[in-house]
Every structure is written in C-alpha cells, then in structure tokens.
C-alpha cells in the first residue's frame, strides 16, 4: 500500500476520498472472488463431464456442465453452512 501514501499531495493531483477508495476496492474484491470461483467450477466440471474431448461439445456434456455448476454452487452452500452453524 506504499504507493498510496503520498503524504501531502501537491496542488493539482486529485485526491480520492476514503469512501470512493473503499467502494473501488469492494468492486475489485468481488471481481477477484467471482473470477476464482469461475476457475474452480470450470476445473471441477470439466473433469466430471468431459471424459473424452471430442470435436465438439455434445448435448449431454453441455447439460452435465449446467447441472454440475448448479451442484457446485449448492455444495458451496452446504459446506459454508456446516462450517458456521456447527455447534460445539
């Protein structure tokens, strides 16, 4: 974060407010999380559904991918819930 600390900025250099900075960061974090999730799901579902890559995606492969994405999202929910509502 050193590149952000400019001390007293000279006249003419635009200052970003804390709120604007936080908003921008929230957007970037959300994008990074979404990107990571996409890559994870792609890897898992490719493994499960595309056993022998052909010259095109078959109908059953496409619908497998769709179901797989739904299931993976569901699995994420189940795991999240198990982690945070476990009573010890």
């Amino acid at each position: 974060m050193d590149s952000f600390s400019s001390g007293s900025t000279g006249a003419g250099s635009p200052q970003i407010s804390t709120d604007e900075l936080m908003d921008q960061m929230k957007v970037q974090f959300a994008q990074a999380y979404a990107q990571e999730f996409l890559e994870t799901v792609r890897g898992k579902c490719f493994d499960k559904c595309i056993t022998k890559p052909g010259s095109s995606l078959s109908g059953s492969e496409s619908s497998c991918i769709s179901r797989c994405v739904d299931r993976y999202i569901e699995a994420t929910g189940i795991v999240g819930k198990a982690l945070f509502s476990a009573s010890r």
Partner: protein
Amino acid sequence: MDPSLNSAELQRFLSQEKEKAMVNEMVTNLTSVCWDKCITSTPGNKFSSSESACLSHCAQRYMDVTLIIMKRVQSMQ
C-alpha cells in the same frame, strides 16, 4: 469526506476485508476437497441425501482435524 488514506475507517475496512478473504479461502478450499471426496458420480439434478450428508460431515470433520493438529503441534512446543 475524509481524504486521509491512513484513516481508522480505512484500516477497519481493510481488516474486515482481510477476514472476509480468509473465510472465503477456507470455504473455497473446503468445498473443493469435499466435492472431490463426496461427489463421485456424474452430477445430477439434485444431490442424493447421502451426497449432501457427506458434504456436511466432510466440512465438520475437516474442522475437527484442524483442531487436533493445532493442539498436537502446540503440545510439542
């Protein structure tokens, strides 16, 4: 409007986001591990009850294992 980049508000925001990132990482890793362990066949239109039970158990047992490992390592120090 506080233009200070060292504001307490920003620091608080950053530590909240850091915690969110750690939680996200844990859920992401755990889902990946438990998916591999529990979902052995081609994904269907819904999970069987044994599949969803497995996912849930997997997450909980993983946390148990984490605790055991931490205690063990601590007892060695």
